Each structure stands twice: as structure tokens, then as C-alpha cells.
């Protein structure tokens, strides 16, 4: 694996994961969509920080606002159909990306913050070669000449362990398998050495053995480049394997955030707890037992209850939960929970 030009950067910044100043601060981010049935708030007052060299997991079910969060940060949502509420801040290098101009955004996107999408089948352009598509980003964001760019692109393909990188350079997306296309996406996202990599369900469309390849690859790249990774997924197994810290979202709200071990050991929000217990466990000999479930459905964003959004499905709710929505409050070091009656943390902690 060739990474001579890559190690320098990690050395330059050389900070331990999760220490120092955050590379990205999201504060009170609210994104609304204009629809035929009126304005709907897809994510409501989302705040979090992302540090260099850490992997932040964002988990939630479909419709919880995970993808909208990432697309709002990248400003990839249509300006005609959506807007950010007053007071939404995405701070990156002292700049607020919510109000940045399109030109400023263009220098951030791809170069400083890169994104990998869920569908490796549709996120590559079918009429251009892999090489052309890798080259495009380099041409725009670097001052390298043509030969250097090609060499760099092939290096990147080798970095993501693409077999026959030189030959693949001239191939089209349809000639590659799903796993290989996702590698191309990762190579493309990393070719400008971004500070932040946003991976939106990077392995959902892939088989488990290919998923394992991609997860390992992302982990290696993180430690090599000290990139901050925001991993969006609904798979708690993937979170357990790769993340340092987790944000749990429900119906557009952050309901809990915690370091990974604490979240799995002692979830404090009833939703997190229910979600964790509803997945079948591997090798636990619980065969044939009923799984604990969360009854009911996620509320429609058009008809949100006045109180806690999870109240209708919650086992611990009372009248107070139906009336007043809880605030996101501190629940220990680097932990926050949005619940009137957070579950007890075990004594030992």
C-alpha cells in the first residue's frame, strides 16, 4: 500500500482522537422542507461536535433525519425546496457553512469535507471512466499536472486495495462489482485528503464479507490520515464495530449521545434501550425466543405530538411526557439525553 504522501499529514496534525478543538461544530441545525402539505421540519435543533481522528456514528431508523443532517452539512439539498432555520450553524474552520456562498462551498466540498453515498451503483457517472471521475476532483482542488494526477489517482485506487488499479483506471463503473464501486467512491472521497469524511450508509447495499472489507478499510484510513469520520447507519452492529461516539436520532431529534461503550452498556434513553434489545444477538443462544419490540410506528413529521416524540411508543411515559417535550440535557461526561425520566446509569459508573 503506497501512502508516503498521506502519512505526512497525519504527522503534521498529530493529535490523539477526540482531543483538542473539534474540526466541525454543528449547532442548532434545523432543516425544513417545503412540501405540498406545508413546511415540515426534517431535523430539529441538531447539535454535535466532531473531532479529528474519531468516528462518530449517527443511528436511527428511516425518516429519523440522519441523511438530512449530512446533506445539510454538505449543502446538497435543493435551495428551492428546503431551508435552514434562523440560528442554524455548521462551523468549519471558523466559517458558518449554512450561510457560506456557493463558491466557498465548492472549495469545501470534496476537498475538505467529502462524502460517500449509500448507493455505489448510482453515485458514479456511468458514461465516464473511473479514472476520469477521480481526476475531476484532483483537477479542481489541486495544482498537480496531468501525469501527477493520474499517478495520484492510481495511488488512491491502490490505497483502497483495488485489484489491478492501473487497469481499473480506464474502466467504466458497470465493469466493477458493488464492493469495488464503493472503493472507488472512497478513493474519490479521500483523494484530496479531506479533514472530514461523511459516510452515509456506506455498506448497506453490500454483502457482509464486502462490508467487512470496507469497514476495515475506513478504519485503516482513519488512523493513517487522522480523518474525522461521520458514519451514518441503521446497523448497530456496524456502530459497535467502528464508532467511538454515537448520536441516536428519532423523528428529527437527537435523543441521546454517548461514547460507544456507555451507550451499549447503559443506554439512558428508552428508545436507545429498546432499539438495542430488538436486534437478534449472534451466538447468544436466544433461539426461538420472542424479540423485545417497539410497538407502533415513528410519528409522521407532519403531525408531531406536542410532548416527547417517542412518548406514544415508550414504556415509561406519563402525562408529563405527552404534554412537554424534554430538552437535551447533560447526563454525565460527554453524554446527553433527551428524556424526562432517563434510565438509571449502573452504580459502577
Amino acid at each position, binding site marked *: 500500500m503506497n501512502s508516503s504522501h498521506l502519512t505526512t499529514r497525519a504527522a503534521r496534525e498529530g493529535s490523539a482522537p477526540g482531543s483538542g478543538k473539534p474540526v466541525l461544530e454543528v449547532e442548532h441545525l434545523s432543516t425544513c422542507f417545503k412540501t405540498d402539505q406545508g413546511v415540515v421540519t426534517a431535523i430539529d435543533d441538531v447539535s454535535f461536535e466532531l473531532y479529528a481522528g474519531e468516528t462518530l456514528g449517527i443511528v436511527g431508523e428511516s425518516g429519523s433525519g440522519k441523511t438530512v443532517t449530512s446533506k445539510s452539512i454538505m449543502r446538497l439539498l435543493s435551495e428551492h425546496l428546503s431551508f435552514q432555520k434562523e440560528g442554524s450553524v455548521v462551523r468549519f474552520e471558523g466559517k458558518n457553512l449554512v450561510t457560506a456562498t456557493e463558491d466557498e462551498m465548492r472549495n469545501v466540498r470534496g476537498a475538505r469535507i467529502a462524502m460517500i453515498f449509500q448507493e455505489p451503483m448510482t453515485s458514479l457517472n456511468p458514461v465516464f471512466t473511473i479514472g476520469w471521475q477521480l481526476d475531476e476532483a484532483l483537477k479542481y482542488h489541486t495544482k498537480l499536472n496531468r501525469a501527477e494526477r493520474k499517478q495520484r489517482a492510481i495511488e488512491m485506487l491502490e490505497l483502497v486495495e483495488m485489484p489491478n488499479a492501473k487497469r481499473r483506471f480506464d474502466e467504466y463503473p458497470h465493469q466493477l462489482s458493488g464492493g469495488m464501486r464503493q472503493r472507488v467512491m472512497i478513493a474519490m472521497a479521500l483523494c484530496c485528503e479531506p479533514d472530514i469524511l461523511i459516510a452515509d450508509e456506506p455498506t448497506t447495499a453490500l454483502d457482509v464479507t464486502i462490508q467487512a472489507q470496507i469497514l476495515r478499510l475506513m478504519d485503516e484510513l482513519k488512523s493513517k490520515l487522522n480523518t474525522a469520520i461521520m458514519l451514518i447507519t441503521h446497523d448497530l452492529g456496524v456502530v*459497535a464495530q467502528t464508532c467511538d461516539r454515537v448520536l441516536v436520532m428519532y423523528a428529527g431529534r437527537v435523543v441521546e449521545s454517548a461514547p460507544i461503550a456507555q451507550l451499549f452498556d447503559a443506554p439512558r434513553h428508552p428508545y436507545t434501550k429498546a432499539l438495542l434489545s430488538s436486534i437478534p444477538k449472534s451466538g447468544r443462544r436466544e433461539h426461538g425466543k420472542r424479540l423485545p*419490540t417497539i410497538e407502533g410506528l415513528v410519528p409522521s413529521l407532519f403531525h408531531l405530538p406536542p410532548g416527547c416524540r417517542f412518548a406514544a411508543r415508550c414504556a415509561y411515559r406519563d402525562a408529563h411526557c405527552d404534554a412537554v417535550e424534554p430538552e437535551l440535557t447533560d447526563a454525565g461526561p460527554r453524554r446527553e439525553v433527551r428524556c424526562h425520566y432517563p434510565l438509571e446509569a449502573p452504580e459502577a459508573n
Partner: protein
Amino acid sequence: MSLLQVDGLEMHFPVRGGVLNRVVSHVHAVNGVSFEVRRGETLGVVGESGCGKSTLGKCLVRLHEPTGGSFRYDGVEYAHSNHGELMDYRSRVQMIFQDPYSSLNPRLTIRDCLREVILFHGTNYVERKGVREPIGADELILELVEKVGLRADAVDKYPHEFSGGQRQRIGIARALACKPEFLIADEPVSALDVSIQAQVLNLLMDLKDEFGLTLIFISHDLKVIEHFCDRVLVMYLGNVVEEIPCEELHASAQHPYTRALLGANPINHPSEKRELTVLEGDVPSPFDLPKGCAFAGRCPIAEPRCRESRPPLERKSSGHRAACFLVG
């Protein structure tokens, strides 16, 4: 005695090409699969995309006519039966499909959708003390809808008015409408969110007990299979590479591919964090199958003889078979 006996089942799809549209090659989707299912058990089929698990399911309900091999259900051979003979078979064996969006007719209300099945198969009766008493189709429809956990007012709605989980419940109600004894569920929960997955899995478990169903459960998710099934067939590129009771899966799975699947499966808890087993390369194309073991190209322990001839599925212990020269 086994309820379903599958012998060397093959499904090769012709690939046409060239100016004359001749058959140029075959996709070997299912390549000589043999197993049996006993009455009342749940057999899991696991494998990655393209391994032939869905094709196997479709062959068994005869949505495809297999190109080779045979299967017997309750002693009767159905692999090449004609339409008339299949009538009875299909009222006994039903399928639940993966995609709850495309598997329901958008123009039929739930009532129409279920009534069609009931009237076609004539299952509008209740059995009391061994005697069949006719009841109205509507009565049965309401009962079915309630059984799968939907409200009675759901029957006059159209599929688009339901969420994915609810649609999957409708798909299950439709499969149950002809009072089958055998269900083939093809990735019934893959398209659903985790919290909804658990609901549907519990429902299937309850219905299985209530109606005494026998099930084949097809999935790519080993965790779900392990939770739900008694036995599992591991498929790779159209072949069964291992068959093992779920209880022994972690302790005694032998085939390198099964071990790799177990190792690549994400963990339950961060404290179990380990290096994921990473298999190099991709699944080979099903057009030109390698001569030897289909897995040899990615196998960490492959030897030259693995590439020469295909290992047979050999009995390792009771209920456990594996197709590998180098283990056990």
C-alpha cells in the same frame, strides 16, 4: 419423515446473445442442491447476493421450473408438474416475498387481494372437530387481518396507505389465506427497519406455532437466521457448502466460508470488538463456474486439489454436513 425432499436441484438460466440470439452460455444459479425439511421445523438459507438462495425459493414454489434434479413434497414429485397438478401444491406451499412494495397489487384493496386467494383455493371454511363448515370469505379475511396484527378497518385500504412493516404483514396474511402448511419466506424482514423487523419476526414465530407451519427462511443476515431457525443451509454460488443446526453454528461450523461469514458479521457489543474476518476478492461470476470448489478463489486455506475437483457435501455428525476437503 421429511416433508420436503430436494434432490440435486438445478436451475440454469440460458443467456442469449449474438446476432441470432442463440444461447451462448448459462447462469448456474442453483447447481445441484440437496436437502430435506422435516415437518414443523424452520430451515434457514443464508448466503450473499447472487448465491442462488432466492432462485432456490422460487423453484420450490415453482415460479421457475427447475432445469434439473427433483423435489418431492409429502411424497409427491412436483419439479416438473403441470399447471393443474400444481393447484393443490400451491395451496399447501406459499411464499412471502422480500419487497413489500412491489409484491402487492396497488389496484386491489386488501379485501380484494385476500378474497382472490380465498375463493381461488376455496379456503373459506373453518374446521371444527374434523368437519369443514363453510364461512363467508369476509369473515375469514377479517380473521386473517387480525391474526397478522392489523386493525379491521385496514381491509378496505389500498397498499399505498400502509408502511413497509404493515405491507409485509399483508403479504403474510395473503400467504396464509389459502391455509398452507409450508411457507417459504424470502428475506421477509430485510427491507424493514430494525424495530419493525423484530415485530415481523415475532409475528412469524407466533403464526408458526399457531398453525403448525413448516418454514424455509431465506436471509442474508446470519443473526436473524440464528435467532429464528433450527437448521441453516449456507449457500455459495449455487451450492450448499454447509448444513448445520443453528445451535452448533458458532462452536462447530467447519467450512471456511461459514467461518468467514461468522467472522464478518458485525458484533453485538463494542466490548467484543475484534478484527473482522476479511475475505479477499468478490464472488466469482456464475457464468463460468470454476471446475473445483466454487469458494477456492477466496479461501484462506485452499490447496491445489480444491481447484481440481469439487468437494462433496459430506456428513460430519448428526444433522451437520460440509463440503470441504480440508476440514473435519
